[in-house]
């Protein structure tokens, strides 16, 4: 299920480095949590490999960060000349290294001019 408007506080594939997967079969009985952990590891084998500070928390702190550098943008445009600029992938909120944000990528921010429906 993909939910709209979910403020994703974590980076897929980067949990706290302090947690390591243990073989669920080590223990005689598997707790529900461990079973779920095994499921997750099966789907995302690279989970838990990245060292360093907690990416969950870093992502939470960086919520709202939207990078747009007009200098970068114009330089890239000049370089490309007639070529198309690489556009944002499906997830516009994840700015990756290669992609240079364009003005079109920045969502339009408008305040609510409409009265709340609770007051209707």
């Amino acid at each position, binding site marked *: 299920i993909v*939910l709209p408007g979910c403020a994703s506080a974590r980076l897929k594939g980067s*949990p706290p480095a302090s*947690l390591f997967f243990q073989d669920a079969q080590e223990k005689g009985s598997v707790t529900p*949590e461990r079973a*779920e952990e095994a499921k*997750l590891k099966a789907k995302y084998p690279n989970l838990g490999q990245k060292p360093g500070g907690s990416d969950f*928390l870093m992502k939470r702190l960086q919520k*709202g960060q*939207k990078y747009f550098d007009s200098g970068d943008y114009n330089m890239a445009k000049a370089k490309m000349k007639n070529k198309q600029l690489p556009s944002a992938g499906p997830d516009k909120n994840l700015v990756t290294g290669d992609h240079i944000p364009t003005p079109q990528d920045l969502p339009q921010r408008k305040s609510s001019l409409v009265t709340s429906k609770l007051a209707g």
Partner: protein
Amino acid sequence: FLGAGGGNDIQWCFSQVKGAVDDDVAEADIISTVEFNHSGELLATGDKGGRVVIFQQEQENKTQSHSRGEYNVYSTFQSHEPEFDYLKSLEIEEKINKIRWLPQKNAAQFLLSTNDKTIKLWKISERDKRPEGYNLKEEDGRYRDPTTVTTLRVPVFRPMDLMVEASPRRIFANAHTYHINSISINSDYETYLSADDLRINLWHLEITDRSFNIVDIKPANMEELTEVITAAEFHPNSCNTFVYSSSKGTIRLCDMRASALCDRHSKLFEEPEDPSNRSFFSEIISSISDVKFSHSGRYMMTRDYLSVKIWDLNMENRPVETYQVHEYLRSKLCSLYENDCIFDKFECCWNGSDIVMTGSYNNFFRMFDRNTKRDITLEASRENNKPRTILKPRKVCASGKRKKDEISVDSLDFNKKILHTAWHPKENIIAVATTNNLYIFQDKMN
């Protein structure tokens, strides 16, 4: 007391529902906070669009002794606007994270509302009379030719239709690098705290250009970051005491008399963990999403992903009570992680010191009675729409054969979350927010 049947049990009835019926919910309409004022006469909501709507309870009608007054719209205003911090390339959402009411001191009402970065003090005042009979102005405001004025009269106040005005009286800005998650007014009614992911600041309600930093958990090297502040609250009676919770499931109690910077806690509340039970999900589900003192101040309640815990302030090493909100989700953690639901921040609230309430999925909400140890699951749904219809308790079937009227875990709608609930300070009236609707329930009066 809760439960079906029995002489003293509360029987909850549908009273009102506010908001649009349609399923297509605009982002701006998502309710982000709900709060009763100190008398319970006013009920405020904040939403993702930065708007505040305040409802007022009607005066009790002597002829309608079977129900308490209804809540009707009293005032609505745009509290916060979206902003873009160009210096930091940071988009600042207008979403109202918290509303806290000040106790009433005069005819006007005051509340604090906050988004991720800025706290505002709003004054809500009534105007029900206006001056008439000016000498130099016509009734429509146009100025009269002074030469036509031959007599003088004294303007008098005459009644007019009630107008409720909201005006921002103070703006407390530029004090938070990270995102504000809590505000809490001190029992001295002069100061308040605001908490973000790494710092807590103390403000004076009259002073906007200065605040004192009282907690700072930012590590010198951000690579060493292991936990963030998730909620904070002042003690209801001791103006020197406050608590803050963390993403690791701990609560720290601080005494401002001990030092100016309360980085060293006076008490640390933490339940020891069984290391053999530790999993990838342990830390995530132990993150505390809300902390609330009981009205007496003797206890505090914390909400983590699967449970509600009651702590006695005199005992730091474990909670005195733990209530499972939706334990059946423990075997669904993998998919809840994939769809981000595991990061949902549920709030909780008290009825005095006896009953606690919190939300769940599928528009279910739960109440736990500390005295009888009974609990109940109810649903906020337009299907139970008739006033004075007693709400039917709900049951989730975790495994095995599903009984009639039970709902299986796999049928739960995880889009329908109840994150925000509030309990009237004096009566058994509760406000429950679904995604974009506000439900008001009250106990059945005989």
